[in-house]
């Protein structure tokens, strides 16, 4: 199919339809409103379920119910709204139900702003929900990559019985780009959802229960061990990253999402000045691509972490780097976007940026 120009949020919605979404439950919040607006029309027209809930809390629990019933279900929100959903997200992870959560980040903390930010890296990868759990978190850098990953995310969620979060900043939500909706999706063997609560007449002799309660500590520990084994498998299979300009670099930039795109331009500018800089671009934030750091040549002068925050992914860079190289940080926050020249400057003055 020919490319079309589409706004990021609408592309998220259409990609979800292409990915086979059966139901959407959500609550309005800027800057993601075009997602529910688009779906309210097109999902209902397709005979599927769209419902505007009374709150984010309610929306995520509607997702819980429909996911437990075996349907492909999603919600979308932005920073303070994702904060409200954390309770339900923990339960969904605990009950091992598949779903898609789209998080379009804005500035914070609190009500913050409605401008683009990457201040919810911790929220996505560490979670605000209780307990030992992980979401599978993808952070695409363009609308095209967002479409591709959303189309695939229901398969991934179903395969692992685990919620998937697609994490973008408000710029990806609000901008328009030329995109192709028909790029192929990796085929996966998906087991039947024989665990879904569809009524015992559909699975005689067995009651299906969606539940995260294990009062017996031994049973809960076994559940935690089981979840952890699953996360290890996810780490083995779903770690995604891109290595850019990885040819005898002086410095390494680590950046994701919109910041990675800005850094791409900075790398080109630096190349013209004879400074070779490579980039590790994590696409999955959980699992974090620690293995990419093993590919960094020994003689690099340092690693510059670039984020639209005051430094959150920085923690994972420090863990992955494990003391091998100097690590520096460059960040803008609150809805401020740097131009590539600022990253060029940060590389040139790397020593002033060193954190550890």
């Amino acid at each position, binding site marked *: 199919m020919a*490319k079309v120009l589409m706004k990021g949020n609408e592309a998220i919605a259409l990609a979800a339809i292409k990915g086979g979404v059966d139901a959407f439950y959500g609550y309005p919040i800027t800057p993601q409103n075009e997602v529910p607006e688009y779906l309210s029309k097109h999902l209902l027209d397709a005979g599927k379920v769209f419902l505007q809930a009374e709150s984010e809390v309610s929306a995520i629990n509607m997702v819980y119910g429909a996911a437990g019933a075996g349907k492909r279900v999603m919600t979308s929100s932005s920073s303070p709204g994702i904060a409200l959903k954390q309770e339900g997200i923990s339960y969904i992870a605990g009950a091992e139900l598949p779903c898609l959560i789209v998080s379009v980040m804005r500035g914070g903390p609190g009500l913050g702003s409605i401008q683009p930010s990457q201040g919810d890296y911790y929220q996505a990868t560490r979670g605000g929900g209780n307990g030992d759990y992980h979401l599978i978190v993808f952070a695409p850098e363009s609308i095209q990559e967002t479409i591709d990953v959303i189309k695939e995310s229901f398969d991934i969620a179903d395969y692992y019985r685990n919620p998937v979060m697609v994490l973008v900043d408000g710029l990806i939500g*609000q901008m328009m*780009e*030329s995109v192709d909706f028909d790029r192929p999706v990796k085929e996966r063997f998906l087991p039947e959802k024989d665990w879904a609560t569809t009524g015992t007449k559909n699975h005689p002799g067995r009651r299906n229960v969606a539940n995260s309660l294990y009062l017996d500590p031994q049973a809960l520990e076994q559940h935690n061990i089981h979840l952890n084994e699953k996360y290890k498998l996810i780490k083995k299979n779903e770690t995604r990253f891109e290595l850019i300009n990885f040819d005898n670099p002086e410095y390494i930039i680590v950046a994701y999402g919109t910041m990675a795109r800005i850094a791409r*331009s900075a790398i080109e500018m630096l190349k013209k000045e004879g400074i070779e800089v490579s980039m590790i671009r994590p696409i999955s934030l959980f699992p974090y691509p620690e293995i990419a750091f093993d590919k960094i040549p020994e003689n690099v002068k340092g690693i510059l972490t670039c984020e639209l925050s005051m430094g959150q992914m920085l923690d994972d860079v420090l863990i992955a780097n494990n003391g091998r190289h100097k690590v520096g940080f460059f960040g803008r926050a609150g809805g401020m976007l740097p131009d590539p020249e600022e990253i060029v400057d940060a590389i040139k003055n790397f020593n002033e940026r060193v954190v550890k």
Partner: protein
Amino acid sequence: MDAKNIKVAGFGGQGVMMFGQILAYSATKDNINGLWFPSYGPETRGGTANCSVIVSDKQINSPVFKNADHLVAFNLPSLVKFEEHMAENGLILYNSSSIDDQKSKENVLVVGVPINDIANELGNIKVANMVMMGAYLQLTKLFSDETIEAIIKKILGERKADLVEINKQAIIAGKEYVKKLGVKYA
């Protein structure tokens, strides 16, 4: 074609966002890459509406740029805000119906078009932005008349199909104005 970084700015209601989107739609139709996004950060202050557009036949990297190749300024605050951030061999198009005459700068061609006056002569002030589009296309040659017309038809849809003609006339009028000025932008 090198990537073109384009800043379009003016008051809300002057068709600024639409101007930018038409460029991004046209790029997409011509099977190259288009990117559009509305104002961000401190740009959201000060009473101007503006958007950034990038068109390129290669993958578009940073959506954010410091210096524009082209600035299309519909009012004075926009010109003042963005004229200092121009790339080498840049082009500034401004609305000379509301902005006093401006001189070209070193490495930046500056062209004024009285878009409000021309649109009023055509009988519809709302097509002032398409007068600007005509002038812009005449200078940059970014997109063909066929591409732009197809996009305008698509945006206006069936409901506003009767407005296609006046928009086309506005684009022609903008082109003619620049031709008469005799300025060229390579």
